[in-house]
Every structure is written in C-alpha cells, then in structure tokens.
C-alpha cells in the first residue's frame, strides 16, 4: 500500500514530496505548509517540540488521507508532519493535493490539514521567550 501520511523527525524536502503527486492528468495542485511562528496567542515563542504517538498517528493520518481520496475528486494527496524539536521558521507540516481541477484540490487540501490538526495524535510543546513552556491541549472546536 502506498503511504500517504508520514512523520519525519528531520527536515524534509517538499519538492520531492510534490514531485510524487504530479503526472500528465494534473491540472491543479494545492498545497499547505504550516511553519513555526515567532508568536502564538500573543506570546513570543522561542521554539517548539512535536511529540506523536507514532503508531496511532500514522494509522490515523492514513485514514485522513484515505477519506480525502474518497470524498473529493482528486488524483493524489500526501501529508508529512515533523516530530521532535523545531526552531522558529521551520516547516512543521506539509499537505499536497493534485487534481484535474482546482475546486477539488483546494477542498481536499483544506480537509486534510483540518482533520490532521483535530484527529492525529501529535502534541505541540511550546517554549516561550519568557522562559515558560507548556503543552498545548486546545479545547475541541
């Protein structure tokens, strides 16, 4: 089975991920990248750490991508999420979706990042410039 979702404990190359999604039928390619910002909720962030329950994260991530491939008229989709320590400006998550037309590419790309953020067991630990640090456990929206 082709893997559509993966965790990466090192920086990864988005160009090679993208290249795996392109073929002659592709008319539209939508992608999303989540980067480590220098602020979150008004607090200056020094860096962060992502931790995953790897076995379940990979299984649940694959389910999200499989749902995207069945719900939307797309050709292919992939998502890679970093784990471990990240500095400001590093890439945390990448989603790429290829389709014949842009409507489906955009909708599926949005679906994947939303579902990954809400369902896949990955947790963010932020270290703040003021020395404080903590795990983010957002209220379900």
């Amino acid at each position, binding site marked *: 089975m082709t893997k559509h979702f993966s965790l990466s404990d090192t920086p990864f190359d988005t160009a090679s991920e993208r290249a795996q999604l392109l073929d002659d039928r592709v008319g539209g390619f939508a992608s999303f990248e989540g980067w480590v910002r220098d602020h979150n909720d008004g607090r200056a962030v020094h860096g962060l750490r992502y*931790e995953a*329950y790897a076995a379940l994260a990979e299984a649940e991530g694959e389910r999200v991508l499989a749902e995207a491939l069945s719900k939307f008229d797309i050709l292919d989709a992939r998502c890679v999420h970093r784990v471990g320590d990240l500095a400001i400006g590093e890439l945390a*998550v990448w989603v790429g979706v290829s389709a014949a037309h842009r409507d489906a590419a955009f909708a599926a790309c949005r679906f994947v990042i939303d579902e990954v953020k809400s369902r896949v067991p990955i947790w963010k630990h932020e270290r703040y410039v003021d020395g404080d640090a903590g795990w983010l456990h957002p209220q379900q929206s």
Partner: protein
Amino acid sequence: MALATVLYFASLRDAAGVASEPVDADGDLRGLYDRLRARHGFALPSERLRVAVDGEFARWDQPVRAGSEIAFIPPVSGG
C-alpha cells in the same frame, strides 16, 4: 492480578513523571483513567481525552484487557 501497560504523552507524561507504567487489568478504561488521574493529579477529565488500545482508538467502557497497551490521548495540537 494480570497487568496491562499504560502509555502517557504530552502533559500526562509530565504529570505522571513516566512515559509508561504497568497497571492492574481491572474494570473498564474509564475507571482505570479515573484511578490514574487521582494518583498522578492529571488536570484533564476523561471527557476531554480519547483512549486507544493496542494502537487503535477504543471506547471508554471497554474492559481493561490483560497484556494490552493502553494510551490516553489528550487533546491534540499538531499542524
């Protein structure tokens, strides 16, 4: 009594002080979490968590099976 293994992640691991521990295979998963919450002082009630057994999401009313690996999943924050 037979044992199961509990895995802790994120704030639960910080509060427990360990990444995993053996527990008695007794009662259901919700009851197990409530006992461990009382022991370790976890801030989050079970209503805000999900639970997984052997790498798959499970229901809180499932019995704690001997030899199983149980993970309590606090609200996720990837992305």
